[in-house]
């Protein structure tokens, strides 16, 4: 914001720009930091010499909170990690618990999850890429993808009744089957989206102004990216084809045919293009999963964890007991340690869960990809101009919720 400077920063503002190094406060509420984090840039003219990051402005103590909530109440918390793609977080968490309790998940549930997760990935990448457009000055490129995003929201809404923080799915499956409205909406989405998406793509991807702006902005080499434990599209933009979906397939990802797009230089353009291509691949995956959607139940047979139908609760003593046990969080959870990771919108989203058999996790640690790769930001922007720094930041898709936990 204009002058959210501390007293010290004010004192420094008398430093000169040329010759001397000036300090610029980039954040905490600068318009280009879509979210809240602060970068104190040391600049020489327009060139960035170094920068220092401050994060934690929306630290919400997820991990401590998780230690105080029963397992089924953690799903709404994971919503708010990477809120651009909450369903992936939800399902990642559910799969972690299912792994812990050793549950068998029907194929249909797995496919349904893939559909929802890929929709979430599309939504996530769309928001990131449209914001790159906005930061590059093409404001309209924000509105076209957002119209499409609304459709994804509507799909979520059909399934779970919420738009953004979905709390979608349950341990063991979904709370309801795909509704007829969902089917029609998904079909029309699959039909209209690629066209609208290619239109968006045509506005930026081969536009020379945009290419000039993004090529070479904020590059990182594959070696450095690996040292910084990058993952997700940002890592793939450097040319490394690491994808959890391919490396450790979960939820039947091994059934689907998709390619892993990679970039060359790891710069903003590569990140943009990788995300664009991933959106196309996601559409392919959704089509495959939807066309081959197996028949069956939308939930696993887990009486200990999946709430019984209300009718049973009312009439069946056993169901009523399960109901109370699940809601009170008194079901038997095996003690143990489990790590499960999914390919989130930003990369490898991991859940490291230590259970002591109690009502709540003993320790739950989220491997938040944003948090890990955002630390490379100063290295990526040093020597770049301020404009590049803005684009690099938006192309890294740093989500404050995921960053600060």
């Amino acid at each position, binding site marked *: *914001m*204009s*002058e*959210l400077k501390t007293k010290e920063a004010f004192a420094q503002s008398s430093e000169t720009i040329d010759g001397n190094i000036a300090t610029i406060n980039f954040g*905490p*509420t*600068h*318009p280009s930091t*879509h*979210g*809240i984090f602060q970068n104190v840039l040391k600049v020489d003219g327009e060139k960035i010499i170094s920068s220092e990051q401050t994060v*934690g*402005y*929306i*630290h*919400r*103590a997820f991990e*401590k*909170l998780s230690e105080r909530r029963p397992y089924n109440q953690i799903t*709404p*918390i994971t*919503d*708010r990690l990477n*809120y*651009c793609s909450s369903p992936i977080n939800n399902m990642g968490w559910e799969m972690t618990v299912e792994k812990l309790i050793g549950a068998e998940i029907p194929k249909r549930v797995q496919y349904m999850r893939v559909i929802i997760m890929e929709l979430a990935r599309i939504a996530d990448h769309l*928001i990131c890429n449209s914001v790159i457009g906005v930061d590059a000055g093409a404001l309209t490129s*924000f*509105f076209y993808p*957002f*119209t499409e*995003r*609304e459709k994804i*929201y509507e799909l979520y809404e059909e399934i779970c009744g919420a*738009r*953004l*923080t979905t709390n979608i799915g349950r341990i063991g499956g979904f709370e309801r089957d795909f509704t007829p409205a969902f089917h029609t909406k998904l079909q029309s989405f699959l039909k209209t989206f690629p066209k609208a998406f290619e239109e968006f793509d045509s506005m930026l991807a081969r536009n020379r102004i945009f290419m000039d702006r993004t090529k070479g902005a904020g590059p990182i080499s594959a070696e450095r990216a690996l040292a910084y434990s990058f993952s997700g599209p940002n890592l793939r933009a450097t040319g490394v084809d690491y994808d959890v979906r391919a490396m450790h397939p979960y939820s039947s990802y091994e059934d689907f045919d998709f390619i892993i797009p990679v970039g060359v230089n790891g710069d903003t353009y590569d990140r943009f293009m990788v995300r664009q291509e991933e959106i196309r691949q996601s559409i392919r995956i959704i089509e495959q999963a939807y066309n081959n959607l197996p028949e069956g139940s939308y939930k696993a047979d887990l009486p200990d964890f999946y709430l019984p139908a209300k009718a049973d609760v009312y009439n069946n003593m056993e169901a009523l007991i399960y109901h109370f046990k699940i809601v009170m969080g008194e079901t038997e959870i095996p003690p143990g340690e489990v790590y499960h990771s999914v390919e989130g919108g930003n990369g490898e989203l991991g859940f490291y869960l230590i259970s002591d058999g109690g009502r709540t996790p003993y320790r739950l640690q989220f491997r938040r990809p944003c948090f890990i790769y955002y630390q490379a930001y100063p290295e990526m922007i040093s020597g770049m101009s301020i404009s590049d720094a803005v684009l690099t930041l938006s192309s890294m898709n740093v989500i*404050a*919720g995921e960053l*600060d936990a």
Partner: protein
Amino acid sequence: MGKIEDLEVINGEGYQLTTLDKAIGLARANSVWPLPFATSCCGIEFMATMGSAYDLSRFGMERMSFSPRQADLLIVAGTISKKLGPVLKKVYEQMSEPKWVLSVGACACSGGIFDTYSVLQGIDRIIPVDVYVPGCPPRPEQIIDGVMNIHELVKNESNRRRYSDEYKHLMQNYNIEIEDGKAE
């Protein structure tokens, strides 16, 4: 906690709205430039509100003012942690009068689900809030409702209220200094 509206009886003694006030209020209400202080999830829903499907610009509000000097409405959307609180307060102080605050979402209004050591339990502890929008995150419809409530406030506000003693007292409750002399 004192609220702006508590301290004012809109049609009460000495604050009878004049025709001029009404005209000014109407003009102001149609030109509320927001400063989106979007931190997290609600920020994304706020973006959706800006988007084509809901289009906040119908209210004359698409002109975002990222500089607090130019903004009329501070839209706080998302969690405000204790670390961020002073920043928010500073932004509020930097805004020039008249200014309004819309608190969007459970986190900003009350801390919401995050009853934790690091989260501020409602921004009305540090700045006065005019309208609360519940929801986590609220639907764009709700945000628009909140905005329209703000418009109602703006329309019915006397032009002089910002210089009244009650207002100064309210600001003192929040330890916010009113910068004198430059106004008017």
